[in-house]
């Protein structure tokens, strides 16, 4: 794997680990799943495929961020604003 790609993958992994601390089912659950996924693709050597995977990883980070935001917003709305 080329050096910039290697760095990008490591960054992805670190960022996701950091985000996993807020995962609803707990950090350990998230960490194990994350580790498995990264190990599964660790043999990949085709730079093009790796590029696509990195893109996918960045997309997943955005999705997790959106999930956390929505979850918090909904919790606050339910607690303080729903009159029913």
């Amino acid at each position, binding site marked *: 794997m080329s050096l910039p790609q290697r760095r990008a993958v490591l960054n992805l992994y670190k960022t996701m680990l950091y985000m996993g601390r807020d995962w609803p089912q707990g950090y350990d659950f998230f960490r194990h799943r994350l580790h498995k996924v990264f190990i599964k693709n660790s043999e990949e050597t085709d730079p093009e495929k790796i590029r696509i995977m990195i893109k996918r990883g960045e997309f997943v980070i955005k999705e997790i961020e959106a999930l956390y*935001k929505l979850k*918090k*917003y909904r*919790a*606050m*709305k339910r607690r303080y*604003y729903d009159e029913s």
Partner: protein
Amino acid sequence: MARVLVGVKRVIDYAVKIRVKPDKSGVVTDGVKHSMNPFDEIAVEEAVRLKEKKLASEVIAVSCGPTQSQETLRTALAMGVDRAIHVEVAGAEYESLQPIHVAKILAKLSQDEKVDLVIVGKQAIDDDSNQTAQMTAAFLDWPQGAFASKLEKTDSGLTVTREIDGGLEVVKTKLPAVVSADLRLNEPRYATLPNIMKAKKKPLKKVTAKDLGVDLTPRIKVVSVEDPPVRQAGSIVPDVDTLIAKLKEGGHI
């Protein structure tokens, strides 16, 4: 350009199941995940957006509490705040710290730092007091816009859209002013890992309440903290007639 002060509180994370201490003196906080009060995140976001729109020159975050409050300040710094002030209040003093004290601290800091706008969350999700913004405005004798769902800067001051019962109210204020953030004001950004790292280099000043000349003697005593009543279990009725009979009994039809 305005200088903005935001108040942030470290509270038990919103997703944590709260447990009351057996002696009813408070809730269990040891070993429990804490994070920034969600309404304060909204306040921080609004201040940072003002800065990004070049309407604010500097954004300062303040937190009153034990050493761990610095983590909350780091989160604020990671979201884009320029510098932070940690007002250290620990132990028994922290347990009895009330909005009136925080308001006095914020008022004092606002004058010392010569800020033009104070933004705080409308309430904290732990004590739900909803008093700090109003009291701060009172101590400073500044106009206030509580429960803001929209904030606009005009030439002479601010236009604040407030969430009130059954609708919205628009108020115009001059600066300096105090604003409290409601849920719909904005969508706070996520403090990313690289930004948390960068935030470690931003300045964080530590002061005590005594330095600011604020007396932390409690004005209110917490008598007891109790669990909310448990929801009564429902029952399955065998047929429609029993259901109607039960509803009539309960006075619903």
